[in-house]
């Protein structure tokens, strides 16, 4: 019984992290149609920035480190979009090659700077401890990850669906030339979305670090998870990304615990089924 609950709590916490990773991926892929294969790298590089800031030599506050890292990654993401991806507008294969190539470069640079050893910052003091409910222990930190993810999900949903800025982004996706003709600065908005996606991934990387730790190959591990989440949930749909993240969180943890040999089958099978039966994903709009 306790095992199940522990697995469930871990699943929800992983789901929260996956949401931070895939929300940006979904916006970038769904709204801007850019298959950003360096999204896992944003997560890993952000996490490395975070652990460096958290390290004793700097000793920054946990949340400050997550924010600073997110900000740094927003700048990097913005530059990549503005100066590289912008030139490949609408060309999917070159975009795939560019982002994949950059992810290899980032992986090597990270290996050079942070070595091949894993970094695992301690759980911040104020988030240690457990919540005891009906004889079952829930680690605070994992609950906080979920809480943060839900708060960010609500904030993103409000921004995209209920603000003028969000409507302008959607207008730019609907019909970019006409959006420009009515005065919307589509190009700036897309840079903003890309930077936001990168920042969210980095933020997730930092707050996930005490739990997942940071190591070479983390990028390549996270990217497929983001892909599955977005395919399951539907590209461009924040609700889809949220539901998909928790679904994958559960499948990942329970699959590894119960059928370790089949863990990847359990992970990828739902994606396959969705692709065959409902290609737009659970909550995706049909692309026109």
């Amino acid at each position, binding site marked *: 019984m306790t095992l199940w609950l522990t697995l469930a709590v871990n699943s929800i916490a992983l789901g929260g992290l996956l949401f931070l990773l895939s929300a940006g991926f979904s916006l970038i892929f769904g709204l801007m149609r850019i298959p950003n294969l360096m999204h896992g790298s944003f997560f890993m590089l952000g996490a490395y920035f975070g652990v460096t800031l958290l390290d004793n030599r700097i000793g920054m506050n946990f949340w400050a480190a997550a924010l600073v890292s997110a900000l740094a990654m927003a700048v990097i993401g913005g530059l990549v979009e503005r100066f590289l991806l912008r030139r490949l507008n609408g060309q999917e294969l070159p975009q795939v090659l560019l982002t994949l190539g950059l992810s290899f470069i980032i992986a090597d640079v990270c290996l050079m700077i942070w070595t091949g050893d894993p970094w695992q910052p301690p759980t911040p003091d104020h988030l240690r401890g457990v919540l005891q409910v009906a004889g079952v222990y829930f680690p605070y930190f994992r609950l906080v990850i979920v809480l943060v993810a839900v708060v960010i999900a609500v904030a993103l949903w409000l921004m995209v669906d209920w603000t003028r800025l969000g409507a*302008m982004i*959607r*207008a730019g996706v609907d019909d970019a030339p006409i959006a420009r*003709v*009515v005065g919307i600065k589509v190009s700036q908005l897309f840079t903003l979305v890309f930077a936001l996606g990168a920042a969210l991934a980095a933020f997730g990387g930092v707050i996930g670090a005490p739990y997942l730790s940071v190591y070479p190959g983390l990028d390549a591990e996270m990217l497929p998870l983001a892909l599955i989440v977005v395919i399951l949930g539907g590209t461009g749909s924040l609700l889809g990304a949220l539901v998909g993240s928790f679904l994958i969180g559960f499948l990942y943890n329970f699959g590894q615990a119960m059928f370790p040999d089949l863990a990847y089958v359990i992970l990828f099978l739902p994606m396959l089924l969705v692709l065959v039966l409902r290609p737009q994903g659970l909550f995706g709009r049909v692309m026109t």
Partner: protein
Amino acid sequence: MATKALTLHNVDAYYGDSHVLQKVSFELGEARMLGLLGRNGAGKSTCMNVSVGLLSPRGGSIELFGEPVTTLPPEMISARGVALVPQGRRIFKSLTVRENLIVAAQKPRDNKHAPWTTETVFSMFPRLSERKHQMAAHLSGGEQQMLAIGRALMGNPRVLLMDEPSEGLAPQIVAEVMATIRKLKESGLSIVLVEQSPKLVFDIADDIVILNSGRIAVTESAAKLRDGSTDLAQHLGVF
């Protein structure tokens, strides 16, 4: 001399290798309406596209109230007060009616007229008001056309370009749209009205320009053309 709102001067434009506008020049006077006529493929929409910056001309110049805008991108031309009601309406289908309007909102550039807001657009098109929270994709063709006009007005333009606003609409709706256009003209807006059918344009426009195969064929005041003494059939086909 009357102020020129929009001037195209010897504009050359290409789609790939095809030379779609050849030395096209015309002038839209302030607070006047210019009817731009021509057959399918004569270059009418291309004139609109170069005027809003969607297509860069290879030669010639475009001026807005005497200032050059030839090489500006669409969003900057929009910021200077040019709005387009595009051919085929092209409303933002995944946005609600209200969102279609607010994304295009811009501050007025002068105090001459009461500014356009969602309220004033809705009072002009009550049917849009009833549907303001619906997705624009669910509107009828006529309602979409009203939304496209409303969206253009939200930019508080000084020059309004309308590319075949009657296209694909039932006659009764066409009459409604034309009545709206007449009102806009009376409010002092400078308008280019592109149409295939001269009937719609002759009695509402002040000046007429007829394009034929990418060249200017006729430039004349509407009053002179209305009497029917000029033979237009060769430029416009049967009508």
